[in-house]
């Protein structure tokens, strides 16, 4: 029953969104250069975001789940921060830190805003907590029993992590990656604030949709549906493949 209500809560708004879409104009929008560019930037930046989350977040999650260091509470608190920041504020924080005249940014030899790397940075900042929390949960679920066995077999921490901890936590890592990817797909507040919104460089689909919302809601809705169908299709395909492979 609750599951059914849950599904209904998800289905009804989506269904109306689909019903409300002006289907006839869809092909036109698909073909337009602005949309194609935005799609490309969204795909690329979300992919890079997942890579960034996996590379930065996995060790972080492991640290939080396994190593009992001083200040673990503080680090965990820090990880949660971007989670509770309204995205626009997250963008402001990024600007203050890494913008052209930001505290750190002004000393950098290159400039991050208005570039794709800015988009990826903003996305990673916003998505990292999702990834870390999901993976930390998965790492805790299994406990350390098999890590201990691996250690007695001569595996150092890294080997044990790579060959035992990681594969056992794989469902959690996949879930975390999916979360991070999806978060990155829908993100626009931090992106627009930090990386800006220029077609062909930093304009992602959500930014385009948001801008369109101000002028032509119907177009915005069509574009949302497009983003939605594509991303859900990718997620479902990947999951089925992973589920089968395991």
């Amino acid at each position, binding site marked *: 029953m609750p599951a059914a209500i849950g599904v209904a809560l998800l289905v009804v708004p989506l269904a109306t969104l689909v019903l409300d879409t002006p289907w006839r104009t869809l092909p036109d929008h698909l073909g337009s250069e602005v949309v194609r560019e935005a799609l490309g930037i969204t795909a690329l930046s979300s992919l890079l975001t997942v890579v960034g989350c996996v590379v930065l977040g996995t060790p972080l999650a492991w640290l939080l789940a396994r190593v009992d260091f001083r200040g673990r509470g503080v680090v965990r608190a820090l990880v949660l921060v971007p989670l509770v920041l309204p995205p626009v504020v997250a963008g*402001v924080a990024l*600007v*203050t830190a890494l*913008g*052209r*005249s*930001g505290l750190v940014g002004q000393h950098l030899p290159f400039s991050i*805003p*208005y570039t794709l790397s800015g988009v990826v940075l903003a996305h990673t900042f916003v998505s990292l907590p999702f990834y870390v929390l999901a993976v930390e949960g998965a790492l805790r679920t299994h406990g350390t029993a098999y890590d201990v066995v691996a250690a007695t077999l001569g595996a150092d921490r890294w080997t044990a992590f790579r060959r035992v901890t990681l594969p056992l936590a794989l469902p959690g890592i996949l879930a975390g990656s999916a979360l991070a990817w999806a978060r990155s797909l829908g993100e626009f507040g931090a992106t*627009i*604030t930090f990386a*800006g*919104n*220029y*077609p062909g460089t*930093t*304009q992602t689909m959500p*930014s385009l949709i*948001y*801008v*369109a*919302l*101000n*002028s*032509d*809601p119907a177009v915005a809705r069509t574009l949302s549906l497009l983003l939605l169908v594509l991303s859900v299709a990718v997620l479902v395909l990947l999951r089925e493949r992973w589920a089968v492979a395991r």
Partner: protein
Amino acid sequence: GGDDEERTLTVLAAASLSETFTELAAVFEEEHPGVEVEVVLGSSTTLAEQAVDGAPGDVLATADETSMALAEDGNALAQAADAFASNRITLVTPPDNPAGLQSWADLDDPGVDYVVCAATAPCGAVAAAALTEEGVTAAPASEEVDVKAVLARVVQGEADAGLVYRTDAVAVDDDVEQIPVTDEDASAYATTYFIAPLAGDDAERADLAAEFVTLVRSDEALEIFTEAGFGGIVRE
């Protein structure tokens, strides 16, 4: 009226009216004891759509004509809308003017990063017209979603220049420097704010709403608007 009963007048207002309307609300409350004015801020489009959807509200004030037309088409208005203030687009730079801009024409320098509102936002439409008027051809570094984002870029030094409303430039005063335009009075630089009472079944509230609209269009209000940098109010 002077009833004991507390009544609330809900005003849906474009976010750029935040300060002026808060001040006007206080004035209105003083003139109408027992009435509390609640200002609900949001983007003009969202507010208009919500008004059409039947969101609680007695007055709608938008930053452009398009949004108000949206509300009118949705039969949300009790009366035709009136213009009550105008705003002008202006070119601002950070206080130290790092790119050394002298005029609008300097925006065409390849080394200058300037930002504007997206063409779909009210301020973006005005900005596009102004840029054409000034003959600027270089593309901006970013098309921000709204004027506040443009202003933030400039204040923070993230952009060398940006096109904002004069009210915004006035609000931050020392944090930006304005670059004068070629023709002060060209209409291409201006946008108009509209206000209308919303349809409802409570006659007493409709009266209050009408009184609020009157206040917004009064000379007392004009002073407040002018101080905030609005101008060129179109009176019938």
